[in-house]
C-alpha cells in the first residue's frame, strides 16, 4: 500500500511534465491541423535555457524562490522566441500547401534543433546539483516510508496553476475566442477582421512557453539533460495528447497524467526496462476502443 502511494506520487509528478508538453501538441493540432514534431525539441531548448540560467543565477547567490521565478520567466521568454521563429520559418511558408508538407518540415526542424544544441552545447550530458531538496515523509512506522519531496509538490502546484491560467485564457478571454474561431473556420475568421497568422503565432508562443516550464521541471527533477531528451519526451507527450483526444485541452492534461502513471507503475511493479513499451502499448489498446482518444470529438462529416 505504501509502495503504491509512492508510485502514485511519482506518476503524478511525471504526468504533470508530460501534460504541459502535450498541451503544445494539442493546441497546434487544433488550430492548424498539423503535428508539430519539433515541439519536443522546443521542450529540450527550454530545459537548456533553464539549466544555463540556473547556473548563472546560482553564482549570484540570490534567494531560491527569486531564482525559480526568474529562471521560469527567462526560460519562457527565450523558448517562446524559438517557438515563434520555428513557426515563421518552417510552417508559415507552407500554409495552404498540402497537408503533409508542414509535417515533413516539422521533422526537419526537429533534427535541426537537436543538432544545433548538440553543436552549441556539446553532446555530453549536462548535470545540475539539486536545488530543492528534502521533503515530507509519511507512514514512518511502516517498513516503506513514503516520501513526497518539496520538488514534487512544487511541480504539481505549478502545473495546476499554469493549467488554470491557461484554461481561463482559452475559454474566457477574447484571444482564446479567436483561437477557437480559427480552429473551426480560418477563412471566415479572417473575413471577420481577425489576423489569423498572428493568432497562430500566439498559439505557438503559448505552447512553447508551457513546454519550457516542463523543461525547467525536467532539469530540476532529473538533474541531467542532454540534447536528445526532446525526442522521447516529445513522443511521450504526443502519445498523451492522442490518448486524451488530440485537439482537446482537458484531454491533453488527462492523457499526460495517464502516461505518467502508466510509466511509473510499470517501472515500479513490472520492469524498469520496458516502461516505454508499456506507455505505447496502452496507447494502441486505447485507440482500438476509443479511436478519437478519451475526450476527443469524433469527426463528423456533414453531408
Amino acid at each position: 500500500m505504501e509502495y503504491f502511494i509512492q508510485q502514485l506520487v511519482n506518476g503524478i509528478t511525471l504526468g504533470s511534465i508530460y501534460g504541459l508538453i502535450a498541451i503544445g501538441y494539442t493546441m497546434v493540432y487544433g488550430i492548424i491541423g498539423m503535428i508539430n514534431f519539433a515541439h519536443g525539441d522546443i521542450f529540450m531548448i527550454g530545459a537548456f535555457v533553464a539549466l544555463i540560467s540556473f547556473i548563472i543565477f546560482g553564482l549570484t547567490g540570490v534567494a531560491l524562490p527569486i531564482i525559480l521565478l526568474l529562471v521560469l520567466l527567462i526560460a519562457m521568454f527565450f523558448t517562446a522566441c524559438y517557438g515563434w521563429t520555428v513557426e515563421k520559418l518552417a510552417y508559415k511558408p507552407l500554409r495552404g500547401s498540402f497537408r503533409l508538407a508542414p509535417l515533413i518540415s516539422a521533422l526537419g526542424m526537429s533534427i535541426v534543433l537537436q543538432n544545433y544544441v548538440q553543436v552549441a552545447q556539446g553532446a555530453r550530458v549536462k548535470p545540475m546539483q539539486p536545488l530543492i531538496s528534502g521533503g515530507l515523509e509519511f507512514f514512518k512506522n511502516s517498513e516503506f516510508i513514503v516520501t513526497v519531496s518539496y520538488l514534487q509538490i512544487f511541480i504539481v502546484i505549478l502545473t495546476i496553476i499554469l493549467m488554470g491560467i491557461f484554461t481561463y485564457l482559452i475559454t474566457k478571454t477574447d484571444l482564446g475566442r479567436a483561437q477557437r474561431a480559427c480552429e473551426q473556420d480560418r477563412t471566415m475568421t479572417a473575413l471577420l477582421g481577425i489576423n489569423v497568422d498572428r493568432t497562430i503565432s500566439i498559439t505557438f508562443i503559448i505552447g512553447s512557453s508551457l513546454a519550457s516550464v516542463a523543461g525547467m521541471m525536467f532539469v530540476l527533477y532529473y538533474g541531467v539533460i542532454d540534447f536528445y531528451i526532446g525526442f522521447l519526451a516529445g513522443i511521450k507527450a504526443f502519445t498523451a495528447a492522442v490518448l486524451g483526444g488530440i485537439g482537446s485541452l482537458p484531454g491533453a492534461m488527462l492523457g499526460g497524467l495517464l502516461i505518467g502513471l502508466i510509466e511509473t507503475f510499470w517501472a515500479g511493479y513490472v520492469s524498469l526496462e520496458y516502461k516505454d513499451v508499456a506507455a505505447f502499448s496502452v496507447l494502441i489498446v486505447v485507440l482500438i476502443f476509443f479511436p478519437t482518444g478519451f475526450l476527443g470529438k469524433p469527426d463528423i462529416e456533414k453531408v
Partner: protein
Amino acid sequence: MSNLLSVENLTMKFGGLTAIDDLSFDAKNNQITSIIGPNGAGKTTVFNCLTGFYKPTNGQMFLHKEDSKISLRKYTDFKIAYVAKVARTFQNIRLFPAMSVLENLLVAQHNELMVASGYSLFGLLNLKTYRDKEQLAVDKAKYWLDIIGLTHRADDNAGDLPYGDQRKLEIVRAMCIEPRLLCLDEPAAGLNPKESAELNKLLKFIKTEKQTGILLIEHDMSVVMGISDHVVVLNYGKKIFEGTADQTKNSKEVIEAYLGVDE
C-alpha cells in the same frame, strides 16, 4: 445619394475562361444593390474579387470614404474586414458551430477587444478597463440578437439553431464588424417564405438604420424585387442590364437570358 462602391472594367480570367468580362457598376450608400443572373454568370466571382480571394486580371474596385477613395485590390485576408470594412457571407452557412450564439458575435468584435485587453494580458488580470470594454461588446451583441429575436438562445451553440436563424445570425455577425459594405451571397437560399420575409425586414432595417450599403446576390426573386433599389443583371460574365427592380422585370434582355430566345 453618394457612391459607395465603384467597380470599373473588372475582368477575371481563369486560363482561357473569362468569368467576368469588363464589368462596371456602382453601388450607393444606403441602398441595396442586387446582382442577379443565371447559374454560372459570375456573380460569386465578383464577390471573390471584392473580398480579396481572387486577384482580378484587370480593372479596379474603389470604395469611397467621405471624400477619398480606397482601392480594394490592395487588401486581402483580414484587412478586407479590418481596414476596408467590407463584410461578406457565403452561400453555405459559415458560423462557428461549436461556439455559443453570443460568442459568434463577440468574435466579430475581436480587434477592439484585443486592443482594450492589451493583447489579453489585462484580460487575464481581469482589469476594469477591459471588463468595461467587454461589457460594451456584449451589449452590442445583445442589441443585434434582440433585432433578430434570438436573445433567449444567446448561450446555445450556434450549430443547434434552426437553419433560418443561422442565416440571420450570420448576417448580424457580419454587421458586428461595423462594415461600410455588406456583401451577401444568396442569403435567402433554403429559407421558407416566412423566413424570407423576415430576412427582407432585417435587410431593410440594416439599410435604413445602419447606413450600410448592401450588395446582394440572390436567386429568390421575391427577395430581389421586394427590396432592391438597384439591380445589375449578369450573363456569361457580362452586364446585360442595369436598372431599378421594375425596369428589370420588364426588360427583354433579362427575360431572354433567363428563359431563352423565342425562335
